[in-house]
């Protein structure tokens, strides 16, 4: 049931739907193959601000694309040609690493994807994306943490816990399962003596702060190595620039490559809300995409032999308008891309039931219409990497989502 989109046709949607139902019974998790010493890892990168999927992976073969996306549309010609993925889609030239991985069968794209959320608030959209709940509310836990918590107790991945990268913990990995925290930065650190005394005090008086501080100290010790001794790691604020994205991936990869390091990680990169002068093949969005591409590269390098069992997925709360706005940018939209990379990914494919870009085909006359559910992709990854059942995924991890079938065969 390849969903490879080379010449989009109307029948692809039908294939997707019957395919999911038909193959559900025959599903065998890759997880079950314990004998081959597979040691799967999953890294989730949340792109906050709503990524313009049409400028990340452009449907250059769609006759309506260039007209809608105007000056910022990707093109196979010109000074900065986009990098072709197949005969229809091309990736932003700021992402050569992703293009190389794609060619090597280690990266894939799911296009025209969205969560179940259809309004256009960043913050509700992010809450839905990260919580995995069917709608907005005041979520306190994320789907990745609940996935981790759903693994059998004592199982290795569950025991090692998750990793949150950045000064605050992304919602997607908040919850009951243990999570380490780490961020690229450098302050002079006090000796262990003070840390132990503070920990002791917290253990007696404030167990929540005790748990958090203990994890922070653990992560710091693990990440401290010859490459991360504060000389190469420049102090950083938010993760909204290319240098910060690369650094955070570098550190996360180091922690995750360790035999006893976490197998699951969440990172959040900011800055994708490109209302004005978004740029196309070059400019603001391209700079950010270059940072994301750098993060893929650092994970590939840093995970070394573990890369072959790793899946990285980059997701965003929703897409942007198909038509550029009055200020050479794009406003909040709906359908967008999910980017997949890693040795574990069955890559070289743009998976899409392409909805088309004619006025009547756009969602509410303005956005790329969503034809894939982001939750289906995430469920597929959790199922393939860690063997979570469709029942657990549809109930605990993504509540009330039994109708959204896990996307099969994302993992090789």
């Amino acid at each position, binding site marked *: 049931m390849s969903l490879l989109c080379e010449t989009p046709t109307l029948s692809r949607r039908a294939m997707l739907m019957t395919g999911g139902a038909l193959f559900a019974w025959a599903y065998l998790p890759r997880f079950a193959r314990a004998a081959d010493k597979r040691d799967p890892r999953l890294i989730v990168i949340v792109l906050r601000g709503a990524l313009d999927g049409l400028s990340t992976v452009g449907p250059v073969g769609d006759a309506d694309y260039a007209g809608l996306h105007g000056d910022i549309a990707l093109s196979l010609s010109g000074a900065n040609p986009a990098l072709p993925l197949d005969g229809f889609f091309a990736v932003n030239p700021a992402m050569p690493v992703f293009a190389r991985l794609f060619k090597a069968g280690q990266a894939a794209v799911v296009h025209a994807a969205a969560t179940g959320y259809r309004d256009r608030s960043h913050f509700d959209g992010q809450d839905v994306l990260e919580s995995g709940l069917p709608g907005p509310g005041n979520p306190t836990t994320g789907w990745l943490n609940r996935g981790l918590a759903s693994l059998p107790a004592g199982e290795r991945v569950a025991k090692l816990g998750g990793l949150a990268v950045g*000064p605050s913990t992304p919602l997607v990995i908040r919850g009951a399962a243990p999570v380490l925290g780490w961020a690229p930065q450098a*302050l002079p650190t006090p000796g262990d003596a003070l840390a132990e005394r503070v920990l002791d005090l917290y253990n007696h008086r404030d*167990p929540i702060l005790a748990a*958090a*501080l203990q994890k*922070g*100290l653990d992560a*710091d010790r693990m990440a401290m190595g010859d490459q991360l001794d504060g000389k190469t790691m420049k102090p950083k*604020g938010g993760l909204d620039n290319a240098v910060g994205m690369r650094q955070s991936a570098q550190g996360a990869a180091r922690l995750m490559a360790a035999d006893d390091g976490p197998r699951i990680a969440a990172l959040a990169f900011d800055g994708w809300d490109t*209302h004005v002068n978004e740029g196309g093949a070059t400019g603001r969005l391209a700079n950010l995409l270059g940072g994301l591409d750098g993060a893929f590269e650092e994970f590939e390098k840093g995970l070394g032999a573990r890369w072959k069992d790793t899946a990285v997925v980059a997701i965003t709360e929703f897409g942007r308008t198909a038509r550029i706005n009055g200020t050479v940018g794009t406003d909040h939209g709906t359908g967008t891309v999910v980017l997949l990379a890693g040795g574990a990914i069955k890559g070289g494919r743009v998976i899409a039931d392409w909805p088309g870009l004619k006025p009547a085909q756009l969602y509410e006359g303005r956005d790329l219409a969503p034809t894939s559910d982001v939750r289906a992709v995430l469920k597929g990854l959790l199922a393939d990497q860690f063997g979570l059942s469709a029942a657990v995924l549809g109930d605990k991890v993504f509540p009330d989502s039994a109708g959204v079938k896990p996307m099969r065969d994302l993992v090789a």
Partner: protein
Amino acid sequence: MAAPVSNSVRPDPALVALHRFGLGARPGDELGKIAADPRGYLRAELKQQDIALISPDDPRNAGLLDSTAAIQASMAAAMERKAARDEKAAATMQPMAADDPAGPANAKAKPAVPRVGADIYRDEAQARFDKALAAAPGFVERLVGFWSNHFCVSVAKAPVVRASAGAFEREAIRPFVLGRFADMLLAVEHHPAMLFYLDNQQSIGPDSRAGKRRGRGLNENLAREILELHTLGVGSGYAQTDVTSFAAMLTGWTMAGREGRLGEPGSFVFNANAHQPGKAALLGKTYPDGGMGQAEAALNDVARHPATARHIATKLARHFIADDPPPEAVARLASVFTKTDGDLRSIALTLIDMPEAWSTPLTKLRSPLDYVVALRRAVGATAGNEPQRSLRWLSVLGEPLWQSPGPNGFSDSTDAWASAEGLKTRLDIAWQAAKQADDIGDPDEMLASLIGASVSAETRQAISRAESKQQGLALLLMAPEFQRR
């Protein structure tokens, strides 16, 4: 989240005044006296004239620029930088790297022109820290912080915002924190910093003269965030058509450019040429075209909408009482908001009088900004009282000053800040601050004057057994009683 052990009982009223409402104790504060009449102590601060303002009469603030002057300085600096770059490029015949201020290529080729925007930002930060260090107990500064975060801008957006973010807070937030909400709202949405931050300065009515001539059009960013974040709140019933229509009303609200064609460069102007002509509807009400008055009328209406009252009441209760605020407290605040037409002084007095404020345990974690300020107050203003270090601490803690990652501002929940990395970083900062302190005196006495009688036996013991004064002070700055509010 379970309540920490130390705060499971009715909190010490002195700590409610100083931590829940204020910015923390300073050596010399008399906690016993405060505990005797904590509400009176808080009310007294509200009574002081112009308490929320950073006064330009104070010689220390003499160098602060108003937003128009600050933006003009930033524009002039940008021109100088460009000239220097052009000169350099012409001299070396080498193409410049992409316009990425963080890029290493630009760092190397840094021109010798003063970085005016950064200087202004530092001076503004200094004035803000000075004000926060001197406040007693700092309830008004906490209100300023609350509203500044509610109506946040980010200096990362553009040099214009970097130069004017401090002036924005002084001009559009501070004069109104004890005034009317609608007045603050109008001041905020007219301010060049906000118009620039949420892209409205470029939004053009497609049927306006400028729109027809230049083929440009709407940018709906500001309109959406006003409805979603500044006033009604998400899910309160407005639709995409309301957003688009409101964006059309707001066209023409812009900032005069460097050439001064529309007005004094860097100041707010209404550009009638860019305004979408005709009537427009918002939430079922039609607003006849009245130029700038059209969106002003709409703003005045959404300011007193019941959804706005609920939205603001919920956020205030979450900030000052608990992450999950008691519904009765929210309802009371919303009703005062509605009854007084958004009088924020009445709201502040209502907060002080709420029984929930004095009975709810102190379970919230201080935000990085409140933590850094409280720590500076505790250690004494003389120790490293230059803004760079505080600004750097705020950055590594994930709450850089006037630089939130999105227009929803920084998180106000304990879960967001009680992270592994966050706590580890607080430990580093507490240690640094303790090492820098000039004269620590006796940590046990500091504990008595900063936390007072309600301190736990464990905290008291940990500090008295410290192996050095520095370690004792660092322990005090890490104690649950110091972290929680």
